[in-house]
């Protein structure tokens, strides 16, 4: 097990190629949920969970079903159905067994299906031709990167509430401009990891 490689992949996914600020994935929920820090964290946790789990399943489907039977063109359909079903099951399971958790996270779950980050990461892991363990680490790290992005952002947005802004820029415009500045900061990480 090349732990150095796994560590590099993680650092790359969290900082250098951050899923929100560099890869442009997961923006929609990002804009909607990042208004308060605790809701942001809730969404983030749900994302980490679904992202990692769905990556495991989609990887297995790719390697054992799609590739051997030359069905790569069915990848999009297969992956999105896996993700959608997974989210359904997780929601039902949570409602019954982990009700307390469901109360705080449950509402975010349906939103996660259309979170391009989940499908995006699943497809990226295939594209980069990572093996099983590496792709799990990859998806986990990307989830963490998402939480980092969302937490940073929520913190800033809470402060922005008190700032005096031109009326037209209030709300999503200034949120995006702030994202631009954070993205610039994250660009400072480039060259940190050589994969």
């Amino acid at each position, binding site marked *: 097990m090349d732990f150095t490689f796994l560590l590099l992949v993680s650092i790359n996914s969290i900082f250098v190629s951050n899923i929100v600020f560099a890869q442009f994935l997961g923006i929609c929920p990002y804009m909607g949920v990042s208004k308060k820090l605790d809701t942001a964290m809730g969404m983030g946790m749900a994302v980490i969970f679904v992202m990692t789990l769905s990556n495991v399943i989609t990887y297995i489907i790719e390697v054992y079903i799609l590739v051997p039977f030359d069905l790569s*063109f069915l990848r999009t359909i297969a992956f999105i159905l896996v993700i959608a079903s997974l989210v359904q099951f997780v929601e039902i399971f949570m409602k019954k067994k982990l009700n307390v958790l469901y109360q705080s996270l449950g509402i975010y779950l349906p939103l996660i299906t259309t979170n391009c980050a989940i499908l995006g990461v699943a497809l990226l892991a295939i594209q980069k031709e990572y093996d099983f363990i590496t792709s799990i680490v990859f998806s986990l790290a990307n989830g963490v990167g998402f939480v980092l992005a969302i937490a940073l952002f929520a913190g800033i947005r809470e402060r922005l509430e008190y700032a005096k802004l031109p009326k037209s820029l209030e709300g999503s415009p200034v949120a995006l401009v702030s994202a631009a500045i954070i993205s610039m900061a994250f660009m400072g990480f480039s060259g940190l990891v*050589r*994969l």
Partner: protein
Amino acid sequence: MAASKKDVVILVLIAAIAGIFLSGTFTFTKDDIDKAKLAYKKKGLIAVMPFLDDGYQELKYKYKEQTINIYTVSKNGSYKGAALELITKEGYSGTIKFLLGLNENQKITGLYILDHSETPGLGSKAANKEWWGQFLEKSKPAFTFKVKKDGGMVDAITASTITSRAITNAVDKGMDIYSDFMKNGKISNVTELDNGQK
């Protein structure tokens, strides 16, 4: 999810129809996709081998512990040159993949970057002829393939020494591989090649 059996059957039916429809589309577009991929690959080869007009032969050459993809070109029985697919992991942001074109006199005829993650506006300038043009018509040992900072003759890109160094060193290795190929590679087979292959 209180869905009735009938609902599930309809969903499965929709999925089945979708599957059939997609298989049809796939079969219909398969050949054109392969053609497009080939044309894209050829674009790079044509860029580095101006003497290529139609046919080339793809070989895998073993040099030390590496296997290099080499694309050779012959016209009317005489060997014209080849393109080597080279990779360096020493780039600023990781791996850079490029094609190096050489003629029968072991002089460089072109360089074409295939893949990189270098900094846009800095390292990415390596793809411009303004930079790699300095390699044209050069060969070893007349030209030292190292950046000036390392005692060679290659001008590095301003503020992108690491990218320049990575590619230059890879070119240097590539020249060695090619000269080895010219000596030990099965050149005789290549001269039997006919125009119009591939």
